[in-house]
């Protein structure tokens, strides 16, 4: 094949020359070229190597169906593999490389696979997986484990970059009355007709210029179309692919914003992921020409007929000197004339015996003739042909290009996304869309309509239907009928070879041959879905756009069924590949999820806090002194809290203001313990259950007034508890007069814990007498003022087991509160402590958090059974003792000590009996810490039957994930000051 640029042909801008690099060499093309057309203009024939056999492949089409010219664009972190050269716009400085070849696509060592092809037949991977025949047949996966890596390396396509994607992607939404997909004759007719009614129309086109198949015509002028359509009020989105149609007339679309620009503005996204809602969708997505399976039908120089016409009239490239066109239908004759006129010698092989057309005299037309086998390896040297009625008698035609038309397949993918099965049209040998009940109309060749005028007519019918959806009167016009050729298409999907193994390719991209389909049938894979998986027919990024129908026809032949009886695989989105980056949009890096900080975040950092993420919150983790490690630091902080005093940011707790005449009733119904008689000025610790009787959350509620409570929840369950209370009040207890307000963000909180906490607090408030044991007893609540006059709330509550308080203040005053507290605490040799020390203090006391209240435990399991009232009904009270929840061997909260005091363990360790270390064991450790007070590692968690069942038994903590095992014993979870003397002090 010698492809050349022709003067006076094409719609490219010859005034603008663009330099680009292909496989490290520099070439030139013009503005308006695709990478494929620029390669062809430079007479580059081999642009890729096939998947399994590494056979040389050239440009085979001019659009999204391309399965030969798959290349890598860009380099380094911007490398984008498996790009179809046919849809990549050329730009100045574009860098493209061939793939799946070493050292390059022209000379590829992997080509040896071509000669080993009998070992690489369908199901090769699965068979290897079962053991290597004949040595390991049926013996399992041993050999697979060894070869898997080599095979993967040898049989991959392009390689993705290992670096993070440097590009930005964006998500966007839009709405319109009518969305038209495709700007061919039918799409444009439809869009213009609808726009006349002043409706809001969006026209989507995947190509960079509008026109669709019009672009294959010499006389079509694309340059003004865009502006014409926009001036008639149509919103035009080019370089945008509608990749999927979803429920409620939602279309997913991918806009390529900068993929065609050499040095794009870094503020622009590379691509935009659109969600578009239309009241009516008109699909004018067109049809794709398919090929025919015969021996060596993949040699570089093979192309579809219509692609060649596009290259001539859009890109000004004559793709061959001496061209043979093989066909089974009428669609090729105009192209043949134009190619001949442009200077090629053209021969037509038509498989049909009679063709009722004015056949051009200057073109050699052989009727009743089939292509049999292409001669040549890296380029076409000739074509063996035979009579359709006598395959033994062969002639060779010398040629440098073979153009194939095996008929046309309407692009029914987008309607198929709606679960609408396509219907086989035997007369035209294609699938057409099935009956659609939604506001979607398919027009043009996507509906199997072949003639341009009929396509335009169908566009008007589509517009009429869309306007009817939008309330306009429906005109009585009907669809042009499917088809439109003068002579019927001939049933020709494969020309069978007498060679074995033949190289009659059905699916080029995955090297699936006609033999593979028959092999799959022989091995029992007769459902199309199984056929697809076994042979990989129709997989990968072309998704069988060219090969599916041929594969189906071959399977139908084997099964002695018709194609509709065999059925087709289900098309799923996306129509063409969508980068993961585009799906993710801006939700990467810091924007992966929201970041929450407390009002004293900066104060904490200024005072040396190392931060940790808990849920969405940044919380102080520990406050290291010089050279201190995490463990040095939290052990020091824990020790100081037990000895003097420590201050900790606890703002992340959920906070809810509960107000109204029925506030007490609500609080009493949701907690297991009694709240009905909680006096004003007192707080209570409470447990909430779910409907099914399992623990939902723990927290406190403070009674501030007759009808007012202040509730705190755990950090982890804050949002859940708020939604839950709203659900109860709005759906179940609609008679209760209670108002809920989330005030988590409005109040900043700090814990002041340790034997000196009363002294510290007394110094910080206006009236120090208020903090006395008498005035503020355990669980007492105080609304008072800081010494600078700022109002605040204080509760005497302890999570650490020490004498302790929590102070809350309006968020804007958080820094001031911390300054005052810290200034005072310093005088008592106090410290700031973080989450790690907070954890250590509560584990020593056996206090539970989200790690223990994980949704699988009852209140009894958690050791809090005495907080479950028997005198009242509450959420979960009916269910908490049901069936298995009563069993004696249920897991119960316990503490764990290592037998050897030097031993450590981790949360997640499985507790097992000594001689039975397996499975889920008899329990689990949920939280661990070093206990400065006890001088060794401790944990809390659950064990079946609780402390009574395992007292003084040596158990094993198994930690298979970290490859660790240690001897442990079960103890009471209340490991320090079990009587609670300290906190009542």
């Amino acid at each position, binding site marked *: 094949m010698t492809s050349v640029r022709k003067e006076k042909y094409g719609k490219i801008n010859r005034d603008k020359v663009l330099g680009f690099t292909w496989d490290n060499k520099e070439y030139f093309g013009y503005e308006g070229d695709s990478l494929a057309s620029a390669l062809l203009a430079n007479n580059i024939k081999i642009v890729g190597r096939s998947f399994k056999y590494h056979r040389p492949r050239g440009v085979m089409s001019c659009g999204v169906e391309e399965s030969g010219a798959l290349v890598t664009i860009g380099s380094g972190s911007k490398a984008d593999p498996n790009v179809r050269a046919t849809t990549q716009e050329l730009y100045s400085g574009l860098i493209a490389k061939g793939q799946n070849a070493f050292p390059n696509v022209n000379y590829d060592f992997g080509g040896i696979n071509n000669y080993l092809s009998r070992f690489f037949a369908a199901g090769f991977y699965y068979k290897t997986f079962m053991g290597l025949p004949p040595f390991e047949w049926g013996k399992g996966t041993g050999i697979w484990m060894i070869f898997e890596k080599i095979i993967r390396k040898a049989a991959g396509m392009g390689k993705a970059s290992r670096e993070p994607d440097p590009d930005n992607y964006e998500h966007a939404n839009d709405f319109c009355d009518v969305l038209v997909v495709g700007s061919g004759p039918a799409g444009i007719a439809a869009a213009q007709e609808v726009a006349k009614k002043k409706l809001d129309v969006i026209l989507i086109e995947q190509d960079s210029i509008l026109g669709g198949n019009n672009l294959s015509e010499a006389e079509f002028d694309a340059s003004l179309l865009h502006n014409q359509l926009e001036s008639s009020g149509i919103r035009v989105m080019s370089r945008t692919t509608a990749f999927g149609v979803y429920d409620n007339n939602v279309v997913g679309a991918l806009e390529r914003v900068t993929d065609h620009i050499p040095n794009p503005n870094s503020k622009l996204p590379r691509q935009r992921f659109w969600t578009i809602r239309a009241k009516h969708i008109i699909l004018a997505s067109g049809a794709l020409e398919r090929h025919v399976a015969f021996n060596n039908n993949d040699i570089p120089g093979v192309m579809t007929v219509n692609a060649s016409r596009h290259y001539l009239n859009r890109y000004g490239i004559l793709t061959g000197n001496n061209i043979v066109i093989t066909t089974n239908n009428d669609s090729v004759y105009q192209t043949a004339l134009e190619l001949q006129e442009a200077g090629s010698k053209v021969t037509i092989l038509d498989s049909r015996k009679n063709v009722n057309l004015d056949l051009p005299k200057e073109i050699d037309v052989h009727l009743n003739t089939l292509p049999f086998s292409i001669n040549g390896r890296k380029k076409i040297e000739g074509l063996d042909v035979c009579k359709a009625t006598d395959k033994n008698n062969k002639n060779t035609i010398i040629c440098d290009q073979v153009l194939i038309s095996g008929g046309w397949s309407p692009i029914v993918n987008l309607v198929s996304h709606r679960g609408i099965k396509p219907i086989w049209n035997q007369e035209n040998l294609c699938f057409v869309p099935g009956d659609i009940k939604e506001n979607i109309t398919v027009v043009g060749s996507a509906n199997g309509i072949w003639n341009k005028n009929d396509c335009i007519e169908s566009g008007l019918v589509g517009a009429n239907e869309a306007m009817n959806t939008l309330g306009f009167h429906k005109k009585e016009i009907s669809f042009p009928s499917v088809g439109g050729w003068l002579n019927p298409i001939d049933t020709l999907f494969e020309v069978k070879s007498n060679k074995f193994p033949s190289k009659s390719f059905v699916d080029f991209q995955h090297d699936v041959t006609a033999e593979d389909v028959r092999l799959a049938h022989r091995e029992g894979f007769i459902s199309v879905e199984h056929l697809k998986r076994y042979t990989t027919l129709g997989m990968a990024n072309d998704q069988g756009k060219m090969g599916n129908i041929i594969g189906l026809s071959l399977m139908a032949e084997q099964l002695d069924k018709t194609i509709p009886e065999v059925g087709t695989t289900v098309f799923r989105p996306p129509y063409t590949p969508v980068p993961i980056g585009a799906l993710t949009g801006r939700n990467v890096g810091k924007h992966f999820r929201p970041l929450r900080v407390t009002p004293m975040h900066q104060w904490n950092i200024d005072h040396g806090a190392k931060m940790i993420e808990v849920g969405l919150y940044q919380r102080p983790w520990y406050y290291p002194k010089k050279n201190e490690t995490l463990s040095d630091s939290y052990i020091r902080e824990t020790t100081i809290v037990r000895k003097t005093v420590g201050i900790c940011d606890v703002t992340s707790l959920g906070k809810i203001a509960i107000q109204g005449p029925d506030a007490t009733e609500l609080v009493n119904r949701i907690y297991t313990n009694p709240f009905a008689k909680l006096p004003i000025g007192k707080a209570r610790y409470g447990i909430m259950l779910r*409907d099914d009787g399992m623990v939902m959350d723990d927290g406190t509620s403070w009674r501030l007034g007759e009808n007012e409570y202040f509730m705190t929840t755990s*950090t982890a369950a804050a949002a859940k508890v708020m939604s839950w209370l709203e659900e109860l009040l*709005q759906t179940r207890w609609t008679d209760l007069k209670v108002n809920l307000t989330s005030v988590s963000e409005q109040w900043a909180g700090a814990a002041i814990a340790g034997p000196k906490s009363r002294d510290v607090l007394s110094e910080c408030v206006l009236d120090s007498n208020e903090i006395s044991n008498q005035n503020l007893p355990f669980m007492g609540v105080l609304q008072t003022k800081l010494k600078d006059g700022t109002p605040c709330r204080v509760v005497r509550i302890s999570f650490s087991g020490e004498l302790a308080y929590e102070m809350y203040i309006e968020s804007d005053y958080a820094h001031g509160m911390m300054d005052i507290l810290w200034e005072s605490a310093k005088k008592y040799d106090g410290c700031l402590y973080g989450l790690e020390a907070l954890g250590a203090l509560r584990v020593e006391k056996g206090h539970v958090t989200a790690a223990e209240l994980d949704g699988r435990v009852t209140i009894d399991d958690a050791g809090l059974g005495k907080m479950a009232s028997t005198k009242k009904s509450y959420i979960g009270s009916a269910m908490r003792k049901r069936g298995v929840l009563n069993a004696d061997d249920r897991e119960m909260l316990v503490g764990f000590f290592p037998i050897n005091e030097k031993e450590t363990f981790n949360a997640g360790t499985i507790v097992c009996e000594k001689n039975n270390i397996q499975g889920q064991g008899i329990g689990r450790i949920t939280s661990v810490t070093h206990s400065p007070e006890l001088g060794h590692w401790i944990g809390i968690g659950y064990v079946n039957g609780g402390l009574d069942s395992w007292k003084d038994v040596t158990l094993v903590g198994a930690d298979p994930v970290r490859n660790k095992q240690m001897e442990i014993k079960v103890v009471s979870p209340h490991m320090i000051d079990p009587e609670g003397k300290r906190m009542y002090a």
Partner: protein
Amino acid sequence: MNGVLVPIQNCTVDMIRIKCPYCGERDHSEFTYGGDASIKYPALDAPESEWTKAIFFRENIRGMQKETWHHTNGCRLWLEVERSTITHEIKSVKACHPQIEKITKNKS
């Protein structure tokens, strides 16, 4: 101490739109699905058998289903939505709370 993982908003195509009687029509990603809206929860002191039925027994409806949705990232109303489990078509939306329903109905 381990951070607690929080699920992120899904980032694929949003298909369902819910007409909140207070806020107007919004993407379903603003809402949280609740559950079956036809369940009548028993009294708190009802026997275990009644609660078992209310909590664990569900119809697997093919067609229109009454369900609750919470406008979590909006007005915080709990809504009763009639939605087709086949097509996602939404037939009706109203506030669950009868008093709120009256007010929002007059508003729209």
